[in-house]
């Protein structure tokens, strides 16, 4: 009955879009709740999406922003590698950063979904695995000089199931090389199970609506999403934005870190945004190179941060975005065999910050400040042997403390932010759960007073953690990119504070560790990590005194900082809760600060 010109009833489009969104949510819930490693079940380092049979991203629900772009390249490769031999019951594994994937730690499970013999969708679950067989016990290897030193097992669109049964060769390969293989296998079941659930639901979806209506829907849904994006871009001023930032140094490899540049060309007339990433350094001999998928996702995510919060994230919206990359670059264009081990964090975190704060150049009310960055000690990968369980090996990423989020024009920074590419979606570990699962004791974990980037809207403060092994040695691998260049403020907001890591041993002075560190802790030794805080947005002198009062009462900021930076003076005391704003003194102090500023 239909041809490509048929237009569907808009109500039906809403209904069908809602059903697909429900399917992605079900995938997400399944994966989250049934996964084994904390990196998935707590840190939520995974995402689920649906791609059309012809490789267009269709629905992504609330997946991790850094996973948003690239799945369509992976499904395209899957179809290319297995042309003529893809059938119902198959499943494929891909983690090739040179084939659209983010980084090798992200095992991507792809299930092609057929209806009436036609490949209609591919259901995709992308999961960060706790271990992927790297040469060090961490799936983040900052110092890997190339893929060989990195050591990850790489699966370029490899078939892992046929007729709904595992291809045991692949399982044996993984079990032979991946640490704590049962944990990997549990996460494999969770990831694959999530894609298989989508398959069942999508088959029923096609059954209900019929193939032609489903196809017409996809077309209309992309057009709708594109219209939303057009509307969003049309509301921006025409501008060429250039913003630069810097990654942390890497001892012995990159003494000055990397200067990173994002150029954004906004054309409201054409309703188009072009992002030029070509002005960036060539690939580096470290794991910091960002894959095409990771770099583009970081930038796309930041563009979405700056626009309507409910914009559909799919191919239709992407039609209004374009990108250029250099021939050989640490940003989006690594040259083989350079390693992309930490492609989703370090440089990608900086790209998110640079891009979202670039929009703030358009004026107050636009963009965001920079968020706290870097996987510090509270997000380290720990490993060792648990004497309580007969010396059983363990390896896991912690999510005990996090960086502070950026301030926006409307709101203060989000406390549980993690890093710019996770953007607050993760769960925190429970101290008790971590102490039960691993031979670790957390000594303290709290917010750091006065650490936040001041502004009309304040960044979220830093957090500080101290922990060590209870018995036996423990390795803590920290791949932090947030200890030198502190997150910057926007539109007059102040910068946040950078992170720090310390080694503590009773009876000796704490010693500062580099931002990227592999620490072997003996019982009695501890690690102290302070995360970075978010930058502020807008002039701190414009912050409502009531907000400053609450910050001081609650110990987020001190009375001294309130007076020095926010220009808010108080009478009374905190302890007996008589603290009150002294309006006259506040006005005087604010004028005084304004006058001392250079014209």
């Amino acid at each position, binding site marked *: 009955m239909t041809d490509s010109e048929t237009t569907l009833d808009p109500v039906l489009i809403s209904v069908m879009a809602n059903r697909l969104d429900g399917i992605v949510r079900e995938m997400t819930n399944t994966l989250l709740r*049934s996964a084994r490693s904390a990196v998935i079940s707590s840190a939520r380092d995974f995402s689920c999406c649906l791609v059309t049979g012809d490789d267009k991203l269709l629905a992504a629900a609330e997946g991790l*922003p850094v996973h948003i772009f690239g799945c369509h390249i992976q499904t395209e490769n899957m179809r290319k590698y297995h042309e003529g031999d893809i059938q119902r019951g198959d499943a494929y594994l891909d983690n090739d950063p040179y084939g659209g994937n983010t980084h090798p730690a992200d095992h991507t499970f792809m299930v092609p979904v057929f209806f009436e013999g036609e490949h209609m969708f591919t259901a995709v679950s992308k999961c960060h695995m706790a271990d992927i067989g790297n040469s060090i016990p961490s799936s983040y290897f900052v110092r890997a000089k190339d893929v060989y030193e990195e050591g990850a097992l790489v699966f370029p669109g490899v078939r892992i199931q046929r007729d709904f049964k595992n291809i045991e060769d692949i399982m044996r390969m993984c079990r032979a090389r991946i640490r704590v293989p049962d944990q990997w296998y549990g996460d494999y079941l969770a990831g694959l199970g999530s894609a298989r659930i989508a398959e069942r639901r999508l088959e029923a979806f096609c059954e209900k609506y019929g193939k032609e209506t489903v196809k017409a829907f996809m077309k209309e849904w992309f057009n709708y999403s594109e219209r939303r994006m057009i509307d969003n871009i049309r509301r921006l001023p025409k501008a060429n934005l250039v913003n630069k930032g810097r990654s942390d140094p890497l001892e012995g490899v990159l003494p000055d870190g990397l200067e990173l540049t994002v150029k954004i060309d906004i054309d409201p007339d054409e309703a188009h945004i072009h992002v030029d990433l070509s002005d960036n350094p060539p690939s580096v001999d470290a794991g910091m190179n960002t894959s095409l998928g990771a770099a583009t996702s970081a930038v796309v995510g930041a563009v979405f941060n700056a626009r309507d919060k409910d914009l559909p994230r799919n191919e239709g919206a992407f039609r209004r975005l374009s990108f250029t990359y250099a021939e050989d670059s640490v940003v989006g264009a690594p040259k083989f065999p350079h390693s992309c081990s930490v492609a989703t964090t370090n440089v990608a975190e900086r790209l998110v910050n640079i891009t979202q704060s670039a929009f703030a150049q358009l004026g107050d009310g636009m963009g965001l400040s920079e968020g706290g960055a870097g996987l510090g000690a509270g997000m380290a990968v720990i490993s060792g042997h648990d004497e309580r369980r007969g010396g059983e090996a363990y390896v896991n990423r912690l999510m005990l403390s996090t960086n502070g989020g950026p301030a926006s024009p409307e709101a203060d920074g989000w*406390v549980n932010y993690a890093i710019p590419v996770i953007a607050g979606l993760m769960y925190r570990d429970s101290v008790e759960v971590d102490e039960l699962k691993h031979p670790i004791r957390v000594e303290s974990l709290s*917010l750091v007073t006065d650490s936040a980037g001041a502004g009309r809207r304040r960044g979220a403060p830093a957090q500080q953690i101290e922990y060590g092994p209870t018995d036996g040695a423990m390795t803590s691998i920290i791949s932090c990119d947030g200890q030198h260049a502190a997150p910057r403020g926007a539109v007059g907001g102040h910068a946040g504070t950078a992170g720090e890591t310390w080694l503590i041993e009773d009876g000796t002075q704490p010693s500062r560790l580099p931002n990227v560190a592999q620490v072997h802790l003996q019982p009695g030794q501890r690690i102290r990590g302070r995360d970075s805080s978010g930058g502020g947005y807008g002039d701190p002198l414009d912050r409502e005194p009531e907000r400053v009062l609450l910050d001081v009462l609650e110990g987020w900021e001190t009375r001294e900082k309130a007076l020095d930076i926010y220009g808010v003076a108080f009478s009374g005391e905190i302890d007996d809760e008589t603290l009150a704003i002294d309006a006259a003194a506040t006005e005087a102090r604010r004028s005084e600060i304004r006058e001392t500023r250079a014209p």
Partner: protein
Amino acid sequence: MSYRISVDTGGTFTDMVVLDPEGQFHVGKALTTPDRISEGMFSALEVAAGAVGREPRDLLAETEILIYGTTRATNAIVTKQTARTAFLTTTGFRDILVFKEGGKHGPHDYSYDYPQPYIPRRHTFEIDERIGSAGEIVTPLDEAKAREVLETLKARGFEAVAVSLLWSIANSAHEEMLGRLIEEILPGVPYTLSHRLAPILREYRRASATAIDASLKPLMQAHLTQMRTDLQEGGFAGDLLISTSVGGCQEVESLVERPINTLKSGPAMAPVAARAYSAVENMGGDAIVCDTGGTTFDVGLVRDGQLVYSRDSWLGPQWLGDIIGASTVDVRSIGAGGGSIAWVDAGGLLRVGPQSAGSQPGPACYGRDGDQPTVTDAALVLGYIDPDYFNGGRIALDPAAATRVIGELAATLDKSVDDTAYAIMVIANELMIKAIGEITVNDGLNPRESVIVAGGGAAGFNIMPIARELGCDTVILPRTAAALSACGMQYSSIVFEATRSRFTDSNGFDRDGVNKALDEIEAELMTFRDGLAVAANSEISIEFFAEARYRAQVWELDTALPTTRMNSDEDVAALIEVFHQTHDRVYAVRDEDSPVECVNWKGRISIRPFDPPDAPDKADSHYSPDAATTRNCFFGDAAPVNTPIYRGETLNVGADISGPAIIEEPTTTIVVYPGMSATLSAAGDYILDCR
């Protein structure tokens, strides 16, 4: 001659259900009076007593049992009227209540502030002490410093104290010691110790439960005591029971000790009602209960005749609010109801909600300056509501206003007014379908094999098409649908839970440790029973559960224990098998090779203080009633259909009504869509056939 009364005081309305000696329900509804709850209750009593044909005072005097459900605690939290509460925790961890558990809605949404902790940081005090994960004392409690802290609390006039120390579940000595010091230094100040209230793993959940509970103690103690006095002055001499968040009820004394258990007690009773109705109508043990109000749509479940519980229940939004921590009947709420606003987004698609016109200004047709089109306006335009008989004729509606606001939307969409109104219903249905889908799927329940029990004033507008979309053949819509939770209380039991944390796994299962935990749980349950005045000789049942998971998973599943103790390897194997089956049902995966870890242990005692209402005799005389009138209604076809309208109070048992039709009950309206049908059962429920 004796009556049984149940009362559900909501934010807006107080619903009362009176069970008369013949087994008939009578409903009374009145506005809630937040300042003195008993006033609204007595107003509702007047209405109900009128329906029974008795004087209110006489009726109350002849009432044996009164079950009271209240949102008092919830409202106190929302309006910040709880006690000035201090939070005591282990040194180094003062931010447990600030950090919560993480999670955020909308990865690109930076428009809202991070939420404040339940108890402010300035009311948080650190106690020098530390216990390790195996219960070992790492740092002994510094009593001198603890005394100083408590003296400070005294000086600063704190009204309640919440104590939650790390690993108090493994060794409660430090919390017990603080309890003794509080009684010494702050005599009469209520306090809650986390290991007694909620001995569960995860410091935030335990701390949050403890903080909420302590903050409610002074207030709920006063409220419940006052309520008992007011009732006694009104002539009531029977037993007063209070409904709780586990879908049961308890005596006033035990709730004063754990007021947190009154939170969400209203919604928790809807599944209890659904279970009873499904049983009365012989519809099996799996039911989905939907309660449609003005601003929210609540969904709960009954599986295999059992209520479904969750530890993941929040005051306020998930992750951003405060977790209740204690186990509650799992009821999920979405922002969709009669007041949800319809709008067109920048891409040209029609959306419904999440904004709501609420009751002020309310839908445009209420004539209170509402100028946004809502679901209720759409129902009026479609002819589903008689503007002169809305809420039994108590609220006069303005059809012209509804047509005007829907007309404006229709112009934007380039559709007819009728089509637009119908589209609003379809989209609203979608939101509800997704909400039902999420809870059923999450719990492995198949809507196709379940019955829907619908309640709430706005349920009848669209429950039939929703059921059809879900593949669910039958809906039970009780005549008393508008007071579903109060009805549920009539079928409830006294329910109490006890928990112990005892970590073990299937590789080296600690049978003795687990049995000791189960012994302690059972002893606590029996102590609870022995303390009851109401139910001395009543029938009891006890169930045990493990909160279990595969090795290294983070989230547990409630697993019913197949035996009451773990006395042999076979008992352990049976438990592990139940876990595999549960995991398979919920996540479609069984991992036979993985060790299974058990984290918490739970016992639940149910005591029947009274018998549920008798099921009616089965009626077999079906008939086709005459319509009271007809009206043009629109069902998405090209033209409106002249639709028969039935008045509920004129219908007798066995009435068969084929769609299209509208059945108007005083407090609810049922739209029977074309091709579907309804029958009035002997029990007074509308059985809707949605095939």
